[in-house]
C-alpha cells in the first residue's frame, strides 16, 4: 500500500512537471476559463438575480473539467507518443496506480482554474468575493476534484486499446458541461435529461460547489451531493480499475501499446 502511494505520488509529481509546461493544458486551465468566465459575466451581469459567485464557481468547474477530460483522454496517447507507454506497461508497478497518480498531478494543476475564476470576478469585474460557507466550499472542492479525477481515470484505459480514442472523447466536453449545470441550471433542460445528469460526477460537483458557495443548499442537501459525488466517482473508478487490467491484456494481444 505504501509503495503504491509512493508510486502514485511520484507519478503525480512527474506529470505535474510535464503539464505545467504543456501549452495545450495551459490553454485549458487559463485561456478557456478566462474566455468562458468573461463572456458569461457579460451575458448575465444585468439580470436581477445575477450571482457572480455562480459564474466564478461554474467557470472554475469548466476549467477543471476540460483539463481532466483532455488529460484523461490524452494521457495514454501522450505516453504512447513519447514512447514511455511500453515502459510503464512493462514495469512491475500497477498501471492503474501509475495513470491514476499522473492524473492526480493534472487535477492539482487544473485547480489553477479556480484561482483564475476568482480573479476574473474580483479583479476584472470588481465583485466582492463573498463565499457563504468557505469551509464547506473547500471540502466540496476537494470531493469534486476527487470525483472529476475519477472521471478522467475512467476515460484513460480506453486509449490503451484504441490509439485515436482521445480525439473522440473530446466530444464529451460541451455536453457534460451543459448537462452538469456548471454555468446554467439543469432545470433549463428537458425533464427527461435530468436522470442522465444525476449519473455524472460533474453534476454533483456543480451541485455541491454552487450550494456551498452561495449558501443555497442546506447541510443535508450538501451531504447528499457529497454522497453522490463519491458514489458516481467510486463507480467510475471501480470500472476503470477492472478495465485497466483487461485492456492492457487486450493491447498486448493486439499490439497497440506502441505507435506502430
Amino acid at each position: 500500500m505504501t509503495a503504491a502511494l509512493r508510486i502514485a505520488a511520484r507519478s503525480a509529481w512527474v506529470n505535474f512537471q510535464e503539464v505545467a509546461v504543456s501549452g495545450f493544458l495551459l490553454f485549458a486551465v487559463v485561456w478557456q476559463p478566462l474566455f468562458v468566465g468573461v463572456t458569461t459575466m457579460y451575458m448575465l451581469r444585468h439580470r436581477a438575480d445575477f450571482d457572480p459567485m455562480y459564474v466564478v464557481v461554474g467557470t472554475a468547474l469548466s476549467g477543471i473539467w476540460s483539463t481532466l477530460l483532455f488529460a484523461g483522454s490524452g494521457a495514454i496517447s501522450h505516453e504512447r507518443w513519447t514512447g514511455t507507454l511500453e515502459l510503464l506497461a512493462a514495469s512491475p508497478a500497477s498501471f492503474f496506480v501509475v495513470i491514476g497518480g499522473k492524473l492526480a498531478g493534472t487535477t492539482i494543476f487544473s485547480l489553477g482554474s479556480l484561482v483564475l475564476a476568482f480573479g476574473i470576478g474580483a479583479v476584472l469585474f470588481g465583485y466582492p468575493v463573498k463565499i457563504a460557507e468557505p469551509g464547506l466550499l473547500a471540502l466540496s472542492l476537494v470531493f469534486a476534484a476527487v470525483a472529476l479525477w475519477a472521471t478522467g481515470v475512467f476515460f484513460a484505459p480506453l486509449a490503451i486499446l484504441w490509439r485515436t480514442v482521445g480525439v473522440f472523447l473530446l466530444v464529451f466536453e460541451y455536453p457534460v458541461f451543459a448537462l452538469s449545470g456548471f454555468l446554467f441550471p439543469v432545470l433549463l433542460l428537458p425533464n427527461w435529461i435530468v436522470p442522465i445528469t444525476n449519473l455524472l460526477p460533474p453534476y454533483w460537483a456543480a451541485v455541491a460547489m454552487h450550494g456551498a458557495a452561495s449558501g443555497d443548499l442546506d447541510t443535508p442537501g450538501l451531504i447528499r451531493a457529497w454522497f453522490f459525488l463519491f458514489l458516481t466517482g467510486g463507480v467510475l473508478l471501480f470500472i476503470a480499475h477492472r478495465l485497466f487490467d483487461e485492456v492492457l491484456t487486450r493491447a498486448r494481444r493486439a499490439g497497440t501499446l506502441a505507435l506502430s
Partner: protein
Amino acid sequence: MLRGSVGAIELRDVRRLFRTTTGTLRRHTKEIVALDGLSLEVGEGELFGILGPNGAGKTTTIKVLTTLLIPTSGTASVLGLDVVRDAKEVRRKIGFVFGGERGLYYRLSGRDNLRYFAELYAVAPREINSRVEELLELVGLRDRGDERVEGYSRGMKQRLHLARTLLHRPRVLFLDEPTIGLDPIGARELRRIVSQLHEGGATIVLTTHYLFEADELCDRIAVVDKGRVVALGTPDDLKANVSDLSVVELEVFGIDAPTIERVRALEFVDSVVVEQRELRQVLRIQTRIAERAVAPLIAAVAAGQVGRVAVREATLEDAYVRLVGRVE
C-alpha cells in the same frame, strides 16, 4: 547454450500474427506473420545476439519476452517464468532498452527520470539516490544529470536508457538495437558498458544490424528471417559456414541491372550484393575460387567501369548475406 547450464530464456514454437487493414472505402483485413514458429534457448549469463533484416521478427521476439506482446501461439519463458501467465514476476527480473531517442520524459532531468523509474521498479526508497548516482556515473552522465533530457544528445539519451534499465539490477537484459544512430565513439562506449555488464554475469539478448558488433560482443548468435531461426551458433560457427568462400569487392561506376544479373549468373558466383556509395557502387561477390574469379568478373562488368578491386576472407557479414540472401 553457453555459460550456465540453466536456460535463462526459452521460446518454443512461438507464432505471432498482426492484423492490418488496407483500403479506404472497401477495407480488407490482412494477417502478417511476424514470428513463424520461432524456437530458441539462451543460457544464464550468455550474451546472445539476434540478427536479421528489417521485419525479420527481432523486435517482436524481444517484445514477447518483455511481456509487451502476447504470442498468438507457442510458449516463451524467462528464468523459468511464463511471459503470459507470470508477466508481473517476469517484469521484476528483466530490463530492456529499445533503440532510438524515445522512451524518456524530456521535460524532466536525467536524474528525475531515473528516480521515477526506480520508484516504478520498487527500488528501496533509501537506496534510490545512491543507485541513481552509481548508474549516472557508470554511463558517464553524472555531471549532466540535472539537465533536462530534451537537451541531451542521442548518445546521452541511449546511455540514460541503459542506466534506467539497470536500476533494479535485472538478471536478464534485452537490448534492441541499442547503438542505432549513435556516432562511432558513442557506440563504442555503449558496447564497453554492455561488455562490462556481461562480465558481471548478466544474461543479455542483443539485436543489432551491425554485424561487427554482434561478432565482437556475442557468445552466440541466432540469424532470424521471416519469423524463423535460419542459423544458430557462435560467431565462429557462423563464419565457418562461409569458410569455403572468398569475397571479391569490385568498385564500379554506373553499372546497370542487366550487368548485375550477368555477374550473378556466372557459374562460380555464389551471391552478389550491391552497395550504393554516392556515385559509385560496390559489388560484393561471394565465390569459391577467390583470385581466379577476378579476371572473368572484370570482363563480365566491362573493364572500363571498374575502379578498385579487392579480395578478402569472408566475414560474419558474408555469412549473414549467405543465410538471409540480402542486405538492407
